[in-house]
């Protein structure tokens, strides 16, 4: 029994997730009849929660298939699969512009964040810099900065240098806003790599740049991927910042555009629902593709933050 438990403990530590072959054994030996009810009530609660999560998404999706302009009530299965609302939202309501803007901003923010955070995390995580810990603490201090604290002067300052109503302005601020977490994440990663790797390469005469590029970067791929999807998500979902920095309707990102659209059209539910689905779909697809990175990022990222 003890051996099984030990084995299980080690697999849990190493894989950090999911069930292994040993699970069947332990379940059989430890579960007694009386607590079966307990387990089923646990699953029942999980299922209730899962339904509570799904129903709002389902209802907005079903509403988007209804004939336009018609009042929509409750959950109703569509008579026919009508994609006209999507066509109208995409063209007339301008959601194609919104998605394009969001993609431009995200594609600017993600690579820049990864590069800057890798460089800084590498130096702060592997080199013994004088005052390095203070610099790291300075970054970490920014982890809980709310957008509300910086958005007011940003509007006036960026307007003064012509960066309001530009993608560049939003991109730069978002990079800065996510930088505390990004640097922190990459520094944690590089600190965890064995120092002997760096040491050996240094003895071979490799420069610090070569060590990063040739030795450490190939090993950093999972961490970079997780950081990449998190930054993409934060950038895609950012609302207040874009609302303030961008007034030009054609440059707005998806959430900002949806927020505006809602203010103007709250009667045409089907088109609004289609727009909502359009705004959610890209990030949902990224979520499905990079599920693992997302879950590690959201759980461990929260843990380390």
């Amino acid at each position, binding site marked *: *029994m003890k051996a099984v*438990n030990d084995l*299980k*403990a080690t697999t849990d*530590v190493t894989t950090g*997730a*999911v*069930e292994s072959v040993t699970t069947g054994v332990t379940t059989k030996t*430890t*579960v007694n009849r009386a607590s079966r009810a*307990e*387990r089923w009530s*646990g*699953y029942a609660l*999980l299922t209730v*929660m*899962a339904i509570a*999560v799904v129903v709002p998404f389902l*209802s*907005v999706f079903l509403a988007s298939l209804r004939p336009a302009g018609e009042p929509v*009530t*409750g*959950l109703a299965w569509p008579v026919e699969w009508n994609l006209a609302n999507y066509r109208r939202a995409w063209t007339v309501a301008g959601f194609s512009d919104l998605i394009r803007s969001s993609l431009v901003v995200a594609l600017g923010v993600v690579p820049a964040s990864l590069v800057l*955070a890798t460089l*800084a995390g590498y*130096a702060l995580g592997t080199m013994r810099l004088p005052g390095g810990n203070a610099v790291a603490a300075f*970054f970490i201090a920014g982890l*809980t*900065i*709310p957008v*509300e*604290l*910086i*958005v*007011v002067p*940003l*509007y006036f300052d960026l307007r003064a240098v012509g960066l309001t109503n530009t993608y560049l302005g939003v991109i730069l*601020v978002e990079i*800065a806003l996510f*930088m*505390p977490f*990004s*640097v922190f994440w990459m520094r944690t990663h590089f600190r965890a790599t064995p120092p002997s790797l760096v040491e050996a390469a240094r003895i071979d005469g490799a420069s610090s740049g070569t060590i990063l590029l040739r030795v450490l970067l190939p090993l950093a791929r999972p961490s970079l991927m997780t950081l990449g999807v998190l930054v993409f998500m934060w950038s895609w979902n950012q*609302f*207040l910042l874009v*609302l303030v920095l961008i007034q030009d309707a054609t440059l707005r990102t998806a959430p900002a555009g*949806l927020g505006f659209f*809602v203010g103007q059209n709250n009667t045409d539910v089907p088109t*609004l629902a289609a727009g*909502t689905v359009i*705004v*959610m779909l890209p*990030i*949902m697809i990224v*979520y499905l593709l990079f*599920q693992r990175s*997302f879950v590690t990022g*959201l759980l461990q990222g*929260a843990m380390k*933050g």
Partner: protein
Amino acid sequence: MESSHRRGAMRGYLYVLPALAVYVVFAVLPALHTAYLSLFDWDGVTLGSWVGLDNYREVFRNPVLLRSLVNALALVVFFSFVPILTGLLTTALLSRYRRPGMGVYRLLFMLPQIVPLVAVGVTWRWLYGDDGLVNEALRAVGLDGITRAWLGDFDTALIAVGLVGTWVLSGLCTMLFLSGVHKVDPSLYEAARLDGAGPVREFVSVTLPQLRGELAIALTVTMVAALASFDIVYVTTNGGPGEQTTVPGLLVYRLAFSDGDVGLASALGVVLSCLILGLVYVVNRLSRSET
């Protein structure tokens, strides 16, 4: 030797410099600029005038601003406490067993967390409507009497907005605790069971202490989400009816860009940030001092 060491350090800082520059210019300086602006009476157009700490006095004296801070604290109940209790309950019921099939639940539970809060708000605004799903469901079970426009009702608006936060954050808290419980040494449960501990006793004395780290994180993340909330409130109620659901984020935006009171907006931003930092500090202190 000494100088080559220093040169190495200088080169090391070259790696840090780009990140540091962007962070300082576009986040740290604006934060300091906000603190500076909070000392002025400025409409955003004409020349501002120095008023010292008057704006801060106004934050705590003006009923609307005060109300927004109280509302933000009330939202903590729905954004933090309810999701954490839900997560703990689920974890308590499932902590003693290996859990096959968790992958699907995990996939679903994270979903509200990854989509834009604006989209979440738009969805709920419609679900809460006169003919929305919430009222439909109530009518279906014969509770016609209590149906209403939940977001437009003075008594229910704040609770309705809060429950949207509950919906968003419960899954995250549950997954955090379940993954934390996963790391608990199974022999601890074994020992507790040999001592004759029942499920409640076992949860309180084995599971809960092991989850202290996760609890601190869940509290931090959800409290920041509640206090700095903007997106959900902006699209569901925009602060109404009256000032029932006004939150500080909404007022910072409104004061600075519609009402032309940049100084007061800045002061509120600073107060909000101090509140967040203070609470995060307390939570982290408590979670550490007990270990």
